[in-house]
């Protein structure tokens, strides 16, 4: 059933009145091709069959005809069951069938290639045994955008030195005795890198959001959050007791409507004016591969006097000509974004999170954050890793490692996306984002793609419900500066093979072409 107009390119210019100057370098085109009807049909059928089988198997298990695998309660009877049966229905009957695609252990640096620890299952994924072999594969699953995950080299040497001179941990909270000179150095370097007045760092990225949003907003405030925001942002917003309203993903018109309505009608029931309005967005959305529309957001926030919280977990280091994130990419002024947040896990190959902004903001967080008062401070070797990477990225010399990696990642992104699209895959996301989702739709294809690619020596991440909408299962390629052109070509060739096996290359915008024809 062909659609009458398959060319539905969504230009992200809104009709707000776009005045922030943007060079022609950043692109405004994000394409989200419609789901082909046949795919939707087969996917729903797939789920229905899985449910029927699941119901039937549960019946067999209850009647004790089939052995109940998995562990059992060790309390005597009389206790209320710990899990509702329907909660674990999905886990038992759908997830368990493809559990070998997730939680795969690795035995090496998660670099451009990795060594997967081979495991086999004798009882359909209920338990695994290790064979002792390692499978070398190209790594398209780890968040290693700039390729700094490395066990040798200057950065690793600095880390090893820091373990010798500073120990592994400090065992005290930041407000007590947990602050080392290294932490202060990291914070000032980070502020310099981002171009803000000050910055503060925490030991975990997830906790940075969950524990700091409550210090910024509280009762009587409004949070406007994008539909696809990460769980940590949602948790932080809920813990803050502010009112949360969700707007459609990247839909600036909907956001503006919500802003207008909310300011006019005030707080629910009492109609008192809002104390503060906070708009929470992410730089790069990890499941869609899309970018936030920063210039328009800044315009909106200035027009309606709201505050902007930008979570750059995936975009810091990976976007922008100098690697400084989406603010750099869109060439906006850093001072226009009130709260810049990011993590060190992705591009910096370390662990932790940060918040940067004006000095009053950071001072306030130092005093009121849950994390500074109760959680231990960052581990010194991890801090050293981030400092080394920051120094490399701050180096403006185009010949040196920092800029080389940024350029390499940008080139890899454009090259890979372009060829993948031309081969006929349905690819979502912004053309410059290093997160590349290609649609698979059905849960069985999720498992099949994963296993087939692994047989060919490529480790990919495939995701389905509940991380994505029910019908839109996908494979998500995470590109890295440590991938060479040859590695990408190999991946593309294997993807072509597997794509044909699974009948994936059904894009109407880019009819399927063989690999060697997509060179241009």
């Amino acid at each position, binding site marked *: 059933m062909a659609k009458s107009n398959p060319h539905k390119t969504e230009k992200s210019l809104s009709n707000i009145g776009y005045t922030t100057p943007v060079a022609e370098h950043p692109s405004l085109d994000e394409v989200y091709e419609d789901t082909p009807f046949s795919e939707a049909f087969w996917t729903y059928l797939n789920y229905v069959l899985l449910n029927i089988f699941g119901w039937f198997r549960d019946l067999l298990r209850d009647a004790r005809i089939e052995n109940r695998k998995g562990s059992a309660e060790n309390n*005597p009877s009389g206790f209320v069951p710990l899990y509702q049966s329907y909660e674990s229905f999905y886990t038992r009957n759908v997830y368990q069938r493809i559990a070998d695609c997730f939680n795969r252990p690795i*035995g090496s*640096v998660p670099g451009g290639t990795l060594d997967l620890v081979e495991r086999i299952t004798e009882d359909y994924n209920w338990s695994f045994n290790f064979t002792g072999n390692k499978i070398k594969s190209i790594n398209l699953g780890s968040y290693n955008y700039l390729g700094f995950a490395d066990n040798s080299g200057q950065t690793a040497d600095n880390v090893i030195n820091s373990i010798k001179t500073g120990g*592994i*941990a400090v065992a005290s909270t930041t407000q007590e005795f947990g602050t080392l000179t290294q932490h202060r150095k990291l914070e000032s370097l980070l502020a310099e890198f981002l171009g803000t007045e000050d910055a503060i760092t925490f030991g*975990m990225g997830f906790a940075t959001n969950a524990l700091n949003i409550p210090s910024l907003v509280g009762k009587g405030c409004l949070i406007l959050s994008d539909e696809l925001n990460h769980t940590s942002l949602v948790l932080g917003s809920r813990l803050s007791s502010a009112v949360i309203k969700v707007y459609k993903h990247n839909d600036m018109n909907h956001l503006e409507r919500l802003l207008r309505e909310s300011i006019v009608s005030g707080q629910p029931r009492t109609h008192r004016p809002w104390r503060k309005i906070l708009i929470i967005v992410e730089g790069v959305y990890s499941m869609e591969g899309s970018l936030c529309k920063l210039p328009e957001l800044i315009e909106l926030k200035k027009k309606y006097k709201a505050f902007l919280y930008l979570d750059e977990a995936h975009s810091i280091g990976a976007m922008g000509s100098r690697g400084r994130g989406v603010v750099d990419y869109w060439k906006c002024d850093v001072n226009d974004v009130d709260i810049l947040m990011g993590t060190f896990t992705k591009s910096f190959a370390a662990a932790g999170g940060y918040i940067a902004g004006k000095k009053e903001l950071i001072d306030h967080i*130092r005093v009121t954050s849950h994390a500074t008062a109760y959680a231990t401070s960052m581990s010194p070797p991890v801090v050293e890793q981030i400092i080394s990477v920051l120094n490399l990225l701050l180096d403006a010399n185009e010949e040196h490692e920092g800029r080389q990696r940024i350029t390499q990642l940008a080139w890899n992104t454009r090259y890979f996306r372009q060829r993948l699209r031309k081969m006929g895959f349905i690819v979502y996301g912004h053309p410059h984002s290093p997160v590349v989702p290609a649609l698979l739709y059905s849960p069985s294809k999720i498992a099949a793609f994963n296993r087939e690619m692994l047989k060919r020596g490529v480790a990919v991440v495939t995701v389905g419900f509940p991380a994505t909408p029910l019908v839109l299962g996908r494979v998500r390629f995470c590109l890295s500066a440590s991938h060479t052109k040859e590695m990408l070509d190999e991946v593309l060739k294997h993807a072509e093979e597997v794509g044909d096996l699974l009948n994936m290359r059904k894009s109407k915008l880019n009819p399927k072409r063989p690999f060697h024809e997509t060179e241009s």
Partner: protein
Amino acid sequence: MGSSMTRGDIENLATDFYGLLESFKHAPLYHISFEIFLVLAVIWLVVFRKPRPIEKKLTEKEKQDLIDEWQPEPLVPSVDPNHPALNVRVLDGIVGKTVEIDGKKSLNFATFNFLNFVGNQRIADKAIQAVQKYGVGSCGPRGFYGTIDIHLELEERLARFFQCEEGIIYSYGFSTIASIIPAYSKRNDILFVDEGVHYAIQKGVEASRSHVKWFRHNDINDLERLLAEQEVLDKKIPKKARSIRRFLIIEGLYVNYGDICPLPRMVELKYKYKYRIFMDESVSFGTIGQAGRGVTEYYSIDRQKIDLISSTLEYAAGSIGGFAVGSSFVVDHQRLSAQGYCFSASLPPLLAAAAIEALNIMEEDNTLLFETIMEKSKRLHKKLLSIKGYIISGDEISPLKHIRLTHAFNTIGRLEEIVQFAQTRDITITVARYLNDEHLLPEPSIRLILNVEMTDEELEFLCAVLQEALVKVTT
């Protein structure tokens, strides 16, 4: 005769009235029905119709005015520049048994370094080996190639150490218990929580959205009272009560008070009232019990009776992160439902390697280390009690004690003075820091933490300095 109506008038009226009735009889049907309808309408309007308020819709101009007039508060309130959090001491080097401040070494009684694993050479060597094999970051959550074989090893070792079926590790101590509680307890469930639990547990309880029943700190009678009340309520709604889960959330050794929970009685009550016990042993892991296995070992209670034990690797183990151990049935659920586990990057391998080596040291040593720390805690407790003018709170075998001045004197200002004075004599201690929105804000105190490698002389010195400080502050 006045203005009374004449007979003729009455007759006229009667005739008129009669005429009216006659006219009704002769009127066409539509006329009569229309008249009846009008009468009924009038009755309805008068009796039944309520006056509807006329809704004034806002005009576009009014909306724009509201939008223009609206002024938000500043993003953050102004902060006192003298707040202690903005004037922390910045340290350098290894913060172990001694810490270097302003170029001088002082004895460290402030950091949670119970077994002095911070700066331990063996642990540092293992961490360096891990960096040379795996690099620093794991670059992904556990579900997507962030599971490194060293994580699996650590989980297995922890489960073995506690003699439980399965273990699970988290990358941040605070997030461990704060993610565990909402994974099991949902909106309709009931949590019985001790009032004195620390902040991370309070946040976990808040995030779960369950009904919370707080009982007085370590007061088992108060807990029984709440349980009995709940039983009475359950009898009224027996069908619904069969789907409400109940949990008891306690700590083995409370960080805010230093005392041990009355676990045996709580386990008895568990089987009577059918709730599950989740115990947080952050402080008691590696410090209490003959082999460092915590409060269950101290009381010789079968660990299988506790549904879940959670703890942290940041205190005794000298690394970063947290973990939980228990039966597979309970622990495995977290791998798909605990937010801090599924949606967060995994622990850097070097920190996991450090924790494994710490476990190695604890297991090799078997009992000496733990006997020593319990012994020294008892001795310190005795010595502290002999200083008049301080109130010592905490169990005698607890390596974590809270020191307060007598009631009227006990202010943060005076405690800070004591801390400053102690620093001048090369003793580092700290005032315990809390946020104001704790459920039950503890009284200000100095949190004293014992490092197992402190010698007797050093403990004597500490008490002498505390005594001097007391004199200085109260005169």
